[in-house]
């Protein structure tokens, strides 16, 4: 956590249809998939990959240089496949997978720091298709972790707030707060970068 927690802002809680502190339970079909994958069904695991690959990609992209993310997505799912037998509660799969992705990102940064003593992000290629996107991503990367992750999942991966909650194990209310506070901070940073 950093020193940039925001003062109160108006958050439209009245738009929340479910109880504000309820973590959405995964659909029964998804629980069945996790149960099957836990028992060694690789096609069930492939289905889980398709459902969660954007979430894992976003969690990693919120923390790591983009060039590293695709490989580490594979690492996260390999770890999950290897460990899924130890997951006692199938409904906990989304939060469990998200925490593996977060830990993998932290582990990557720790090892990279040991090897290079300095973390150097990829430069934004001037004029390239993604240069503007990478410049904005750099501003997102300066936000507190929870805001950063939620915004990447929403703006890069295209997940809705409800999908972010379902796939990360956060409550919808927390996602809503993170989205609004994070967006407010991001707007402020972008305005500072682009003086009128």
């Amino acid at each position, binding site marked *: 956590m950093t020193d940039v927690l925001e003062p109160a802002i108006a958050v439209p809680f009245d738009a929340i249809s479910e109880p504000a502190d309820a973590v959405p339970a995964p659909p029964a079909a998804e629980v069945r998939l996790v149960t099957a994958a836990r028992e060694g069904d690789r096609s069930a695991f492939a289905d889980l990959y398709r459902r969660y690959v954007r979430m894992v990609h976003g969690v990693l992209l919120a923390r790591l240089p983009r060039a590293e993310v695709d490989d580490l997505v594979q690492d996260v799912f390999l770890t999950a496949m290897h460990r899924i037998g130890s997951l006692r509660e199938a409904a906990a799969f989304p939060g469990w997978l998200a925490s593996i992705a*977060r830990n993998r990102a932290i582990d990557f940064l720790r090892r990279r720091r040991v090897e290079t003593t300095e973390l150097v992000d990829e430069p934004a290629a001037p004029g390239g*298709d993604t240069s503007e996107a990478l410049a904005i991503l750099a501003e997102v990367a300066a936000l507190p972790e*929870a805001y950063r992750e939620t915004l990447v999942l929403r703006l890069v991966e295209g997940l809705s707030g409800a999908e972010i909650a379902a796939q990360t194990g956060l409550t919808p209310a927390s996602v809503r707060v993170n989205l609004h506070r994070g967006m407010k901070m991001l707007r402020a940073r972008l305005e500072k970068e682009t003086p009128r």
Partner: protein
Amino acid sequence: MSDYLWDRRGPADPEIARLERVLGRLRTEPPMPDWNRVAPPASVRHFSPAYLAAAAALVIACGASLWLARGTAAPSWAVVRVTGQPVVGEEQVVEAGRLPVGAWLQTDPASRASVAIADIGRLDVDPGTRLQLLGTREGNHRVALQRGTVHALIWAPPGEFVVETEASTAIDLGCAYTLTVAPGGNGMIEVSMGWVGFEHGGREAFIPAGARCATRPGVGPGTPYYADIGEPMRQAIDQLDFAALDPAARRRALGAILADARPKDAMTLWHLLARVPAEDRDPVFDHLARLAPPPASVTREGIRAGNRAMRDAWWDTLGLGTSRWWRIWERSWR
């Protein structure tokens, strides 16, 4: 009420729509492996040379001692001598050896050792340490630290490595920490990466990277705090956690903590919500609300009554990740 940021319903916010369009260019979907053909090996792509050297030593030690111990089936961990003469049971570890379940590893003031925590991590053991391997199996690895200092580095998913001390149980929630137990049983944990949960008798602490937490026999974990807080605040936390204070002294200590709390110390204040008696929770509520406004589902009355779901919902807004996943892993220490 429509909310474009939430689900793209309602009138589009032009700035958000632009960000979606631009940032959406960074979205990729890595090709899916053929899971039927993939065996999940441990990746070594990003390991440093120093790490690889240590890992190689542990693998060699593992093989050699397995050969020496052939015929015995007791699970054990590989141990490598770093300096001096560490001892496992009655045997000196000359270069490498095994730490079987139930055995003690001891280092004298001139010894250090490194232990492979099965295939999930590494435990570096400082001089003057005594620890016992309590059990090791897939998904659950436990040691008891009687005294001394260990540095744990875990690369498994959370919840698989547990250290028991006289004063608390430490459960790894991802990555790296240092745990010290003094001869009298007082402990201190300092987390450098990821998270550690600390628990004793239902009293719990969740300690993020950069934070510390003390623990005392018979009391359990104190209140975690970031290592860069000022000395007056640290002393006040120590008093509040472990001293026998009358109500007036307790409120003075609480006041000193609140007076010095910075925005990032919301983590400490959140823990105080469950630490202080109900009659002292209002000032903590007010101060924490100024640092990090609670979500709408959290009420003063609920916090005063000790509602854990409300505390967890508030935690989720602190920018420290979700409480839900460590609530899942805390069952490991029950």
